[in-house]
């Protein structure tokens, strides 16, 4: 049996970097998709045959998936607290309006507001984190593979592009702002 009240549990969850199973699945799924996109690019444009380069593709996609999902989690954590502050007023107004006619204790009302704030901030932070990190990842992939690493062999180009894109995205996400 948990020692904490519901309110305390929500606060603990709020300040924890751990994500729920659903968010985790969403992050890993999106990270896998975005990490697999450059395979198509290198296959069709840089003429890297998928059969002969299969091991390289799988290995780099796995590494990139891990790093990008790490970036998603970090970005979400930073953004969530800021979003909670921004959305607090709107969520409070909505809950008060929704339960205007119902009799409720102050504690119950505050608990509902907290739950709703957490839910809204969680969703918005998750989706924005995915969007933001994907944008940076794809920018680095396009810039690196077509401009900076253009003269390299396709295999080396692929390794360095994916390493740079996923590495930099993970690095930028560790910032506190």
């Amino acid at each position, binding site marked *: 049996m948990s020692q904490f009240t519901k309110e305390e549990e929500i606060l603990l969850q709020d300040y924890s970097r751990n994500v729920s199973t659903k968010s985790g699945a969403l992050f890993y799924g999106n990270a896998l998709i975005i990490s697999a996109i450059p395979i198509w690019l290198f296959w069709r444009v840089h003429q890297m045959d998928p059969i002969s380069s299969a091991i390289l593709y799988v290995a780099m996609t796995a590494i990139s998936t891990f790093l990008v999902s790490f970036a998603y989690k970090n970005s979400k954590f930073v*953004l969530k607290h*800021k979003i909670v502050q921004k959305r607090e007023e709107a969520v409070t107004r909505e809950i008060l309006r929704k339960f205007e006619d119902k009799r409720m204790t102050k504690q119950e009302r505050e608990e509902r507001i907290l739950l709703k704030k957490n839910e809204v901030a969680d969703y918005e932070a998750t989706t*924005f984190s995915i969007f*933001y990190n994907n944008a940076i990842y794809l*920018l680095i992939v*396009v*810039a690196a593979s*077509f*401009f900076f690493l253009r003269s390299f062999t396709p295999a080396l180009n692929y390794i360095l592009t994916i390493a740079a894109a996923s590495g930099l995205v993970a690095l930028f996400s560790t910032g506190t702002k």
Partner: protein
Amino acid sequence: METPRLFMVFCLLAIGTASANVCSNPKVKHSVYTTKDKRLSTENVYVVEFDLACDGGKKDVPIYVDLNGKTIQTARDAKTGKYQASWSIDYAKAPTGQLAFRLFDEDGYVALRKAQRNNEDTSTVKELATITEKFKGASDGPWFQSETVALLATIVICYVAHSARSKIVS
């Protein structure tokens, strides 16, 4: 006595040979290839390939093709029977628009060459058939490379994402 007979045989042979090189009531099925991309070559190439059906099932009729004053003899594939002619012309002088490939048999070719030597109007020489093809000209390629467009698009999206994040974080 022998000489007139020999002369007659010779005349008959000459007429027979001449008529073998003439195609009457020609029917042409053709395909034309022209250079599509200027960046991959230094000259514009025109290739015309056609099947020629003449009355009486005549085959191996020598055919000459003229394109804007440049006349060449066609090559013929012994297996398929198709005729083919090709030109490569510098891009600055390459004809565009409505191309007319004029086909001539031996007689027509002789008349055409005579008109060309005498600086006469060659359009008055009757051709065997004409193959027409519309050609806009070889492409110089796109104005912007696709990777540049992709990079610019991702930069714009990143800018929008960063602006939105700055608003949230501020």
